[in-house]
């Protein structure tokens, strides 16, 4: 018996492979500024790895972006993150890691809800964020690869992502 707890999450209702990822418009943060942008306008520029992560500052967020950086995903595809953190927090994150990535700010977690991956945080009343999830999208937002956390905490299947990029991009 282990003496720590990994929480099983209820079944997600996310867009799956072959389906179209929902479009949305939110402030999109780069290293220099933020501006309202639609997912569709971003994805139209090329294949995109859309990654939902916990709020900036949580250790899974740090681990996820460090691993993305180590593997150089941003060299091969557009890398776009989504969390409930503010543009100011995203700006600070981009100074430290997530090189070449851009980050959507979705404070009310409406995008997480549209993707069927919302996660009400225990012990933080009123705070909902996306559960970790990764989608590889082609230019028309068709999902080519999807991974959604089924427990908390959980980390993306980095080798699978790498294989999906190699296969589709």
């Amino acid at each position, binding site marked *: 018996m282990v003496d720590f707890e990994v929480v099983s999450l209820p079944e997600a209702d996310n867009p799956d492979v072959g389906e179209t990822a929902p479009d949305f418009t939110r402030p999109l943060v780069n290293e220099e500024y933020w*501006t*309202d942008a639609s997912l569709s306008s971003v994805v139209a520029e090329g294949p995109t790895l859309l990654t939902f992560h916990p709020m900036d500052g949580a250790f899974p967020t740090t681990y996820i972006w460090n691993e993305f950086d180590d593997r150089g995903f941003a060299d091969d595809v557009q890398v776009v993150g989504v969390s409930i953190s503010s543009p*100011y927090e995203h700006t600070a994150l981009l100074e430290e890691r997530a090189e070449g990535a851009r980050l959507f700010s979705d404070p009310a977690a409406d995008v997480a809800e549209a993707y069927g991956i919302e996660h009400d945080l225990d012990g933080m009343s009123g705070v909902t964020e996306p559960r970790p999830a990764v989608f590889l999208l082609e230019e028309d937002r068709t999902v080519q690869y999807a991974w959604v956390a089924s427990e908390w905490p959980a980390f993306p299947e980095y080798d699978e992502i790498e294989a999906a990029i190699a296969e589709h991009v």
Partner: protein
Amino acid sequence: MSESDPQITLYRLQACPFCERVVRVLNDLDLSYQSRFVEPMHSDRNVVKRVSGKRSVPAIVDENTGVTMSESANIVEYLQNTYGEGGAA
């Protein structure tokens, strides 16, 4: 970028009254614009320096006319002269 994208880009700082002044004039003149928000620290505003030559906001880039401009009083005057009643555009 599609053809429907606004031709005017406004570099602004959240809660900056000089920026809000420009926003009011843009709205009064019924002009569409895209906001780009920058950081409060001057040293973190390289993008504004690059486009306008200065780190101050507000700054606008107007693709219609090729004009890039800083200082809210100058911008307001430019917008009214260009897009206001009897304006050039």
